[in-house]
């Protein structure tokens, strides 16, 4: 899988773009102390001229209501947003895969029980429930990660289960059973490798879902109050009247950062899904280059108005 998978992937321009966007934002997060012009935790020595000052030399994205550099805030916010995104999706992947694999492989009442629990969680609107839990449990970053992870694994579990149902009927699973491979061995060494690409494609979307959920919670004032994330920047900007003052430089950059990550992950996920499931892509005859070749080869007139590929 790995080698040919990578070769197909580099051919998908959108996918490569998505990966580049993702890697760049991860680098920004890791290198924050070196690339951010200011440290948001430094003691503030601001004058009244610095309060929500518009972009200018030295502060390319302006300053917030206490004179901190917005660019630096956004750069440092990357760390928390990505941390929450990846940590929560790790929970989603582990929990979703475990439950999906067990339900799909075991079948019978185990499957029924697990899937009814999944359905139960699935039908509760996630955001209101998250708000309630955070309000009761407290506003720590750990709580945010746990709440997002524990309420979002259901889609992963359903996807994985559906895949397992089809893979477990394949002949090599019967062969593995005949050889004497244990049930756990069959699930881990024979079934799981088959569905890894699907899990990966689904997990990338979960990361962006988790990042957006964190932003929603923070915007609603239920994020970790001691940490800067994109959501909490928008929350502060909103509360301190950035809208009324027309301080767009305070609101737009964190929003753009969210859009950047979400778009990058969506492009990446789409590319992976297209490779895993080629039928999602266009029909081979509708590949633009091949279509042109086919039309050119027609004896009637090689240059006579090649039709645009349709459909």
């Amino acid at each position, binding site marked *: 899988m790995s080698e040919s998978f990578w070769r197909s992937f580099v051919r998908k321009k959108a996918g490569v773009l998505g990966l580049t966007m993702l890697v760049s934002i991860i680098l920004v997060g890791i290198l924050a102390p070196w690339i951010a012009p200011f440290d948001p935790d430094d003691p503030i020595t601001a004058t009244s001229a610095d309060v929500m000052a518009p972009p200018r030399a030295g502060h390319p994205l302006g300053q917030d209501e206490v004179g901190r550099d917005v660019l630096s805030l956004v750069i440092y916010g990357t760390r928390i947003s990505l941390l929450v995104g990846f940590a929560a999706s790790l929970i989603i992947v582990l929990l979703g895969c475990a439950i999906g694999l067990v339900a799909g492989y075991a079948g019978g009442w185990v499957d029924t029980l697990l899937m009814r629990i999944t359905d139960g969680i699935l039908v509760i609107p996630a955001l209101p429930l998250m708000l309630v839990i955070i309000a009761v449990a407290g506003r720590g970053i750990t709580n945010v990660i746990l709440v997002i992870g524990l309420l979002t694994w259901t889609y992963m579990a359903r996807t994985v289960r559906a895949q397992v149902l089809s893979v477990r009927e*394949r*002949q*090599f699973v019967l062969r*593995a059973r*005949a*050889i*004497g*491979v244990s049930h756990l061995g069959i699930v881990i060494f*024979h079934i799981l*490798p088959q569905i890894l690409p699907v899990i990966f494609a689904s997990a990338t979307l979960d990361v962006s879902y988790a990042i957006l959920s964190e932003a929603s919670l923070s915007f609603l004032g239920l994020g970790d109050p001691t940490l800067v994330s994109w959501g909490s920047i928008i929350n502060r900007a909103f509360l301190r009247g950035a809208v009324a003052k027309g301080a767009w430089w305070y609101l737009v950059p964190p929003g753009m950062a969210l859009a950047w990550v979400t778009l990058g992950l969506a492009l990446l996920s789409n590319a992976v899904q297209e490779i895993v499931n080629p039928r999602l892509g266009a029909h081979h005859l509708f590949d633009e280059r091949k279509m042109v070749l086919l039309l050119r080869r027609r004896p009637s007139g090689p240059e006579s108005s090649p039709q645009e590929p349709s459909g």
Partner: protein
Amino acid sequence: MTLLQVKDLTVEYHTDAGIFRAVEHLNFRLEQGKSLGLVGESGCGKTTAVLAMMRLLPEAGRIVGGEARLDGTDLLRLSPTEMREYRWHKISMVFQGAMNALNPVRTVGSQIEEPLLLHETTPRNRAKEEVARLLDLVGVSPSRANQYPHQFSGGMRQRAMIAMALACRPRVVITDEPTTALDVMIQAQILDLLQELQAELNLSIIMVTHDLGVVAELCDDVLVMYGGRMAECADADTIFNQPAHPYTRRLLLAFPDINDPRAELASIPGFPPPLDNLPPGCRFEPRCDAATAACAHEIPVDVEVAPGHRASCLLARPRKG
């Protein structure tokens, strides 16, 4: 010497749509070092019968009765753990469709290694050597152990599956349609290979097939099945030259004869009986050209036509002389 004896094997499938009897009162024996062909149309219960012996039936499958004694031990009465030990050590299987029976995301070598390690036949540090030996045995270059199934040709995949079946040095190997989906040249090579291995390792082989050519080539004895029951059982020579059951005769007519290439092939009109609507009498009666009135409601018993030749037909009579 009889190595494997199956008596009265009956298998049902219990599904939401009802209970289907896929194999009924099947009897046969397999001699040490010989090969037995299990022949019949698709859906006649061949594969179900061997999967039952291997205790690998799908969830809905139930062994309702009978026994399958391998060297005196009844495979059908073993506990799942004991059976796990027996499988591959004593009795192994080459599964139908080598492409699907190999895991596409793992190297062929690692898959042949799997039974060696699981059954602790070979110490871990010598497993790679053993894989090389097995691949060499079936005529695949050991250097290809690190390749994936899609890098193998159809014939090589089948060879790899045979290597895997031989990994724990079993005494009985079941091959399920070993040559289907292969071209004629490769079919011949695989059959040659099986024949060589049988002689070299003193294997006993059960060959499930619908190809009478394969049977003629390789099998000492033949069991013809129809609608989940035995139709006829005898040595290959007798089956081809003196068939006693009308179904066997029709089956032979449906198969090209190399000595008379211009003879017309005769298909058998009608379809095999659906398992949920079996005829009350002989299962072949609706399609049989020799059927009498009694055939429609009387279930035939096995008739010993000659020593070692059984036919399940009301019209069969012991041969004289």
